[in-house]
């Protein structure tokens, strides 16, 4: 069970809703992923085209928790505004703080992320900040009261997987709130490694939506996250330099 603030979830996969080839594929991918949490973002509406389809309308909103992000914000102030706009829908209390400080790397601005997290906590939101894999920054966010910490595995949409497993494991070890690895996951193996390191969940989007077969990849990610979690709970064997026989060495007739 994944507990974030007052919310409880069965699935440890948080799925993004951007860049799918079509709504039908997206709907199937969401279903097979068995996710409980879907991320969205807030954008201006084209008021002259009210019949424009929207993925949200195709969802059973009883089944999913919406996690709006503040993507597009470059400052804490903008992030707070996006979060409040999302909350005004009456559909969500959680927010993923995402304050991008560099358009080329899409890496989060640590100072603005801290400020936005602090402000949104004061406003009563359940706050999940997307952060770099900086260990001390993660600690500072937790000290502020963040309900989960979401360190990136590697730059958003890069599919590079976990480039600093050491930092990630330090963050996981020190945290008393859930750690959700967010951004950069490319393959099911990446997601499994994150979970084996002890992450409480994985948030991904492009790895599924841009896969050759998003529906199959959604299922693969679901299984990888479950396998990684089970492996973590089971406790892996330590690595040794030399071999250890699996078959008994006693009772050999020829020696």
């Amino acid at each position, binding site marked *: 069970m994944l507990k974030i603030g007052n919310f409880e979830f069965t699935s440890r996969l948080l799925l993004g809703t951007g860049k799918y080839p079509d709504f039908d594929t997206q709907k199937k991918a969401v279903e097979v992923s068995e996710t409980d949490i879907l991320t969205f973002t807030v954008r201006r509406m084209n008021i002259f085209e009210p019949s424009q389809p*929207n993925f*949200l309308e195709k969802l059973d909103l009883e089944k999913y928790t919406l996690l709006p992000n503040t993507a597009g914000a470059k400052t804490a102030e903008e992030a707070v505004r996006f979060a409040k706009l999302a909350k005004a829908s009456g559909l969500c209390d959680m927010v993923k703080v995402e304050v991008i400080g560099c358009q080329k790397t899409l890496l989060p601005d640590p100072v603005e992320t801290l400020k936005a997290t602090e402000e949104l906590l004061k406003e009563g939101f359940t706050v999940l900040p997307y952060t770099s894999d900086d260990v001390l920054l993660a600690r500072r966010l937790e000290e502020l009261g963040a309900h989960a910490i979401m360190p990136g595995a590697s730059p958003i949409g890069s599919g590079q997987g976990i480039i600093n497993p050491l930092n990630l494991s330090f963050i996981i070890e020190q945290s008393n709130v859930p750690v959700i690895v967010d951004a950069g996951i490319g393959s099911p193996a990446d997601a499994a490694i994150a979970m084996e390191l002890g992450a409480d969940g994985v948030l991904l989007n492009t790895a599924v939506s841009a896969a050759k077969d998003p529906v199959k990849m959604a299922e693969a990610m679901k299984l990888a996250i479950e396998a990684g979690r089970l492996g973590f709970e089971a406790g892996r064997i330590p690595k040794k330099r030399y071999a250890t026989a699996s078959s008994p060495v006693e009772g050999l007739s020829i020696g």
Partner: protein
Amino acid sequence: MKLHINGDMVEVPDTITTVSGLLEHFELNNKVVMVERNEDILDKETLSETKVEDGDKLEIVQFVGGG
């Protein structure tokens, strides 16, 4: 009257007096939309009592796909 909606100047009938009236005019009343009027973010419950006046600056936003 003239309103600034999502950065554009839009002419709407003077019979529109409230934000929910405005949403109905654009056939958005059954959609999940969030509204900001003159930099005030409006709770869903207050849309029918919030007035719109000539020259108001409105942002009408929605949820779209994102990660």
